[in-house]
């Protein structure tokens, strides 16, 4: 297949031996390795690539890089595609598939274009003004408007691309690998600085790749390759092509996205210093129908010809307000294209060698473009005379805008308006401490100056970094074929005549008329004009439109452009995909997942898991072939504990060892009940408060040996309790000699509970005396089980005779299976969190996070009696605060379902009368609804302002509408005297 616009030049960056096949809008084309999608489309004569956002006007490719406002495409199979990618940045690969956006049923026949018939209405603020009344109708309007609005379509299937993150540190980050960046990186690298050199393009060299220039006696391409070879040979230098620095943050931190063939890598770079060598971006001109496919930036034409061997037209016209576009005329002619005319706004044209026979019209303007889907001719006006010039390409240049975005992330005070550029440039060569600006983005115009500034910036950075001295980089000799042309532009970007739409922002379809309307309606601040018209608010962030828009606004207001000022620059410089920001942290990798040492057994035996903090814990066991529901299984598991014996995996409970001379004193200051005074080999239930007097955590304190204690915490509070203890030890009582060590992961712990638990234990450890005398309630003993140190606690959460057995984590599964075997004759069954909940509610045991929610004092939950002594502990003083001692605070009570059947809803509010929807005062709330296997009826714990037992209330869930009549009881439903657990 032929590529009609391709020429056979040497030194291009494409590889003609490697032809690639790709599909665009369903049609197959050929390109070459090294092409971008845009260059390959242009090589095939495809100019029309998309439809515009608002008016659905046909649009072509404007630029050759990151600034592209028009050529946004969907890449990849439909549904699995990525939307809104710039065709100018997509490297071509074999089998690539892409489609146009914003058109239906096809790009050429787009029904949405009918909207143009209504375009006189579709001015700035149209939606705000039109759809305000009546307000109820907005939800109907919205559906239609949302469908019509937006760029591209979101993909519908899972993103299969790979994403990762890296943190990097360097002495110097050089942004941009054009002439200035290459020189800065070389200068600093020679002085042994650790350098990261970044460029958003695949091919490095920046502007050099589009200029006809010799450096140090070599072609620009050879010189770039040689310079890069020197850099890449150094271990201290990292070169990252196809990497965009999207944001500059405080303290030398930069956000980078690197595109690779496998996916994207987000680099978080901490740089001690940085060099900005970001170059400049060409501006278009604003004239009638300036958005037609075939209207392209003059500099982009040079890049397409000199990098890709693509000549986007046979007969071109050029429209400019500066000298640099004349180079495009030379370039086009070298490539065999005809230059019909150069239309120059200025009074005088420069004398440029090699263009003697080209018609140059000065003080001339393009007032119209003919051809709706591709340029056929341009209408020009010279003086008062109009002329039509037939052409298939219009190259425009409205001057160049230094790319100062990264410098301005963090403040615009680093910028000043420069008349020669007609744009903002940095105020000095180090506008932000530690950040050097160099080359075109710093206002340097000729290549020699750009190279010299690059060397100077590299040297200055190395000097400031304290790098050792080295032979400085010599300024290379530069030879321009035909002389260098300046980008200095006349201060005009706009043609007043002409009847068509004059687009300022091509991506958001903002015209001169929209800006004028905004000003007529009273908008003055450029920030307001921007928001009202959406100027510069597209995915291109107005890279080609902002300066032109500001100039037009300034002119209409009779102000200078620097009085109007710029809008705020914010990261990201270019859109960053959510996938890149998420990296690997999605789905199961979103957070740490912790599993108990016995986890695999639970999996094999039908456990249904639920999260508890970062842990996964069995909620219940679904026995094979039984098809039990959660409730059925949990009732059975709980009843088995009450009647026989059960085991539960409680390895996740937090465990902290506290040792040292002052360990007892330290614990006494943390717990309300002097846990440090617990006897040797004894356990004590303890409660900790926060300093504001509310209950923080509970657990047991066991004295393992003199000056050595083991404390347990609730699963979810393990980290917080550790941090709380460390804080008080290090910052409040540093005089106490205490060592704190978290040991949660070191131990696997199994709770063995039920009337038969002692027999099971005796069978498990026949050599140990586990009688009630030898191991009484709240007793502790260290034993040996299968050759490993084992900790045996007589602790009960279920209210039954119960033990907790702890072994080193690796032996957890052995212990678990041995217990099941020993308990088999007694009908042992594992039980999960749901059954554990039933049992502890029945017993009136509370849980941190549900019953104890950070708003209750020990007195509220009936634990006021635990407070011992009169010395200080954390939270004691706060308990005397008036609000915490007043009468009528909600206190812990129990509830049973009045009819013995209706479940008590979760998160229910308590009210006095049956709920009919009429508001009533809340008298409290249900904190733990459950089911009592002993009473065979729904029960609950709650906090309520009620006095009398036996009273009747209604528990109402305002969210689900469920309610149950409940009877107030004591908050213990089973064995209130604790005979079973002591037995």
């Amino acid at each position, binding site marked *: 297949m032929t590529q009609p616009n391709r020429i056979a030049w040497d030194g291009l960056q494409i590889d003609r031996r490697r032809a690639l096949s790709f599909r665009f809008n369903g049609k197959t084309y050929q390109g070459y390795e090294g092409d971008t999608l845009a260059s390959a489309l242009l090589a095939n004569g495809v100019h029309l690539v998309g439809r515009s956002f608002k008016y659905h006007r046909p649009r072509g490719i404007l630029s050759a890089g990151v600034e592209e406002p028009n050529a946004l495409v969907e890449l990849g199979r439909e549904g699995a595609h990525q939307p809104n990618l710039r065709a100018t940045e997509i490297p071509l690969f074999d089998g690539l598939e892409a489609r146009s956006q914003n058109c239906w049923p096809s790009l050429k026949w787009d029904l949405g274009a009918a909207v143009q018939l209504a375009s006189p209405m579709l001015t700035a603020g149209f939606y705000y003004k039109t759809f305000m009344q009546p307000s109820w109708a907005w939800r109907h309007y919205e559906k239609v408007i949302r469908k019509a609005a937006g760029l591209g379509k979101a993909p519908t299937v899972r993103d299969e691309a790979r994403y990762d993150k890296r*943190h990097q540190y360097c002495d110097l980050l050089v942004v941009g690998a054009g002439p200035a960046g290459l020189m800065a990186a070389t200068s600093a690298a020679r002085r042994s600085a650790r350098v990261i050199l970044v460029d958003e393009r695949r091919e490095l060299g920046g502007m050099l790749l589009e200029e006809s220039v010799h450096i140090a006696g070599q072609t620009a391409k050879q010189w770039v390759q040689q310079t890069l070879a020197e850099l890449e040979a150094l271990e201290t230098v990292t070169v990252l092509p196809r990497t965009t620095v999207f944001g500059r*943050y*405080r*303290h030398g*931190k930069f956000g980078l996205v690197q595109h690779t063939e496998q996916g994207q890598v987000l680099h978080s770079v*901490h740089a001690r210093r940085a060099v900005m060598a970001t170059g400049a971006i060409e501006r278009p001109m604003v004239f009638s129908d300036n958005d037609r496919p075939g209207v392209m930036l003059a500099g982009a034409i040079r890049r397409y010809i000199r990098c890709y061997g693509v000549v986007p037209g046979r007969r071109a016209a050029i429209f400019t307000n500066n000298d640099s576009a004349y180079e495009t005329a030379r370039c086009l002619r070298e490539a065999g294209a005809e230059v019909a005319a150069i239309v120059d706004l200025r009074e005088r044209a420069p004398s440029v060698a090699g263009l003697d026979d080209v018609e140059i019209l000065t003080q001339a303007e393009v007032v119209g473009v003919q051809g709706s889907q591709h340029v056929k001719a341009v209408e020009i006006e010279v003086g008062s005379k109009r002329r039509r010039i037939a052409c298939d390409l219009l190259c425009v240049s409205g001057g160049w805008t230094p790319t100062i975005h990264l410098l301005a992330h963090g403040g615009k005070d680093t910028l000043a308006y420069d008349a020669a550029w007609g744009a903002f440039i940095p105020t000095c060569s180090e506008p932000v401490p530690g950040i050097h600006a160099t080359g075109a983005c710093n206002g340097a115009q000729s290549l020699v100056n750009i190279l010299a500034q690059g060397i100077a910036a590299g040297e200055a950075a190395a000097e400031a970094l304290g790098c050792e001295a080295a032979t400085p980089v010599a300024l290379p000799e530069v030879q321009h074929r035909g002389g260098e042309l300046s980008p200095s532009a006349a201060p005009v970007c706009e043609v007043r005549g002409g009847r068509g739409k004059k687009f300022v922002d091509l991506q958001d379809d903002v015209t001169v008329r929209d800006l004028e309307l905004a000003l007529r309606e009273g908008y003055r601040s450029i920030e307001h004009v921007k928001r009202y018209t959406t100027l510069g608010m597209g995915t291109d962030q107005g890279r080609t439109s902002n300066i032109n828009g500001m100039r037009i606004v300034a002119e209409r207001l009779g102000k200078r452009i620097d009085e109007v000022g710029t809008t705020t620059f914010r990261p990201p410089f270019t859109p960053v995909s959510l996938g890149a920001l998420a990296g690997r942290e999605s789905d199961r990798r979103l957070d740490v997942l912790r599993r108990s040492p016995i986890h695999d057994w639970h999996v094999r035996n039908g456990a249904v898991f639920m999260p508890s903090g970062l842990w996964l814990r069995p909620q219940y066991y679904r026995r094979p072939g039984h098809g039990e529901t959660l409730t059925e299984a949990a009732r059975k598991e709980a009843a088995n504990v009450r009647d026989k014996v059960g085991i539960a995996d409680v390895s996740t409970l937090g465990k902290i060892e506290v040792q040292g001379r002052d360990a007892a004193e330290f614990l006494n200051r943390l717990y309300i009940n002097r846990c440090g005074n617990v006897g040797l080999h004894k356990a004590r239930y303890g409660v900790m408060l926060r*300093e*504001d007097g509310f209950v923080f955590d509970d657990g047991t304190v066991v004295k393992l040996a003199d000056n050595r204690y083991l404390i347990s915490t609730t699963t979810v509070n393990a980290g917080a309790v550790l*941090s709380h203890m*460390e*804080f008080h030890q*290090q*910052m*409040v009582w*540093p005089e106490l000699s205490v060592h704190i060590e978290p040991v949660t992961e070191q131990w696997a712990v199994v709770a063995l509970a039920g009337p038969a638990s002692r027999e099971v234990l005796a069978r498990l450890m026949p050599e140990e005396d586990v009688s009630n005398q030898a191991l009484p309630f709240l007793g502790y003993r260290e034993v040996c089980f299968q050759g490993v140190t084992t900790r045996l606690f007589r602790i009960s959460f279920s209210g039954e005779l119960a033990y907790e057995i702890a072994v080193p984590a690796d032996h957890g599964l052995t212990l678990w299976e041995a217990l099941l075997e020993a308990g088999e004759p007694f009908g042992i069954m594992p039980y999960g969190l749901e059954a554990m909940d039933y049992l502890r509610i029945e017993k009136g045991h509370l849980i941190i996070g549900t019953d104890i929610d950070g708003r209750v004092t020990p007195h509220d939950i009936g634990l006021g009696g635990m407070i011992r002594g009169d010395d*200080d502990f954390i939270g*004691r*003083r*706060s308990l*005397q*605060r*008036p609000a915490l001692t007043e009468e009528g605070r909600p206190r812990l009570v129990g509830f049973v379902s009045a009819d013995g059947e209706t479940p008590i809803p979760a998160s229910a509010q308590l009210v006095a009368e049956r709920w009919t929807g009429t508001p009533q005062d809340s008298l409290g709330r249900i904190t733990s609804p459950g089911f009592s296997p002993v009473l065979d009826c729904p029960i609950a714990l709650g906090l309520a302002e009620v006095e009398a037992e036996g009273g009747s209330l209604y528990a109402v869930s305002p969210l689900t509408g469920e309610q149950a009549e409940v009877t107030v009881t004591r908050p213990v439903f089973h064995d209130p005297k604790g005979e079973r657990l002591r037995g």
Partner: protein
Amino acid sequence: MLRIPCPYCGERNYTEFTYGGDANQARPANPATVSDTEWEAFLYRRGNPAGEHIEYWQHSFGCRQWLKVVRDTVTHDIVSMGGHGMEGGEKA
């Protein structure tokens, strides 16, 4: 952004640390003798300066030491830092 020079581990990323709030309030030595108003001030009254602020950070994913850090709330510069006994701190 924030790089915190831990006196024990060296300069580390702030993501290794946990913020612990205002460090201007020392816990009264004998809370029982303190008035309700003074106790309330210790518990709840906090300044919100635009500028230097003494605050607690714990090096949670490092040495687990609690540190007193003087941070400029406007620039996020770490001005100085130290452990419990810090008086004015060591310059970062």
